[in-house]
């Protein structure tokens, strides 16, 4: 039986189609197609499971960069994962684009359309929130979980910048 699920946020809608293969009849466990629509631009990111996983991981990694740098970051953030790219164009403006050739290579899907969309930070948050809603839903793709980017030890630069702040306050 085909199953259809939608995860809506004020700025984007994530639609998932698939079938139930396991014992639970309502659990969407095989993804046939997903589409991510943005309401502020006529852009749709559509593809199969591998593109969805790449999108989930890329957005989570990029969100982490945005959250750790704040908006006043000088060096622009950039994340490139499979066919999905995310870069910071200006403070608070982000560019998300999908490359068709890279998608064919990395996901073996021939139907992926190249697309590009500009997101502000609130729209990026809505995309992240939609993907997280899908990730925590046990009834849809139980193997797709919210991705948490790997933590690295704080860079020496970060330590230099942030430690004087604490040291200045110490008695």
């Amino acid at each position, binding site marked *: 039986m085909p199953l259809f699920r939608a995860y809506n946020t004020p700025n984007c809608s994530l639609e998932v189609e698939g079938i139930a293969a396991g014992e639970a009849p309502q659990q969407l466990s095989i993804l046939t197609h997903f589409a991510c629509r943005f309401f502020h631009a006529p852009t749709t990111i559509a593809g199969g499971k591998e593109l969805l996983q790449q999108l989930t991981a890329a957005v989570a990694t990029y969100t982490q960069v945005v959250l750790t740098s704040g908006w006043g970051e000088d060096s622009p953030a950039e994340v490139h994962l499979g066919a999905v790219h995310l870069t910071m164009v200006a403070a608070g403006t982000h560019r998300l684009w999908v490359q068709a050739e890279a998608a064919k290579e990395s996901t073996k899907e021939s139907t992926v359309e190249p697309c590009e969309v500009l997101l502000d930070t609130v729209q990026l948050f809505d995309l992240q*929130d939609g993907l997280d809603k899908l*990730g925590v839903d046990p009834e849809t793709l139980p193997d797709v979980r919210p991705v948490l980017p790997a933590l690295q030890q704080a860079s020496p630069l970060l330590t230099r910048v942030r430690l004087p*702040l604490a040291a200045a306050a110490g008695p």
Partner: protein
Amino acid sequence: MQVQTSDPTSEPMTDPGAHRANGTSNPVAVPAIVATLAVPSHFGGECPRSLCLDVDTLLIGLECIDLTAIEAIVMMAAELKLTDYVPHRVQLWRMRNANALRRHYQRAALDWERLRALVVLVAGLSRLLAVHLRLLAATEIQIRADKIEALGLQQNQRFLEGFLERFRQLYRSRMQKPLPLNDDELRELAVSTLTQLLFASGESGALRLWNALLAKAV
């Protein structure tokens, strides 16, 4: 997010002011909602000082939006069965004084459990205030793009300015003097705090916030 509780009959801590150096000696089982936030091994037993600072800043950000944020946090702690960590306002105030910039700075750092409980509560309250966070963040973007006049949203601009001004006042009145941040840096801090709170209001907000805090912890 599913709220799971540890043993609800577990007795409250007898000495809420005592900071334990390491959470592993905690006799009370860590509630599941707190345990979902994993502590990476490379930090060891000691909780980084910058985390105490960041969590306090986030709480100030919430207070700038909702003047009763502290009462809300204490009530939410009772709802989520986190009263072992945050039993009342005084204890919350003591915990916030682990922030090295505070005027009443106490040298003892927070332990991991208390810190994670605070992050869970910050994310929970952000979710309740999501509408305001979204409006403030969107207004900040519109001001950056110089669209406020064109859109006729001057009242939102005043709302954001009120937030920034209150943040500046609260931060200045509570931190030590001289403050190592000037007004422009304080504004930047307020805006990045707003972004963090916005992302914390999402579906996996507590996880995202926790991971971001850890990534820049020193």
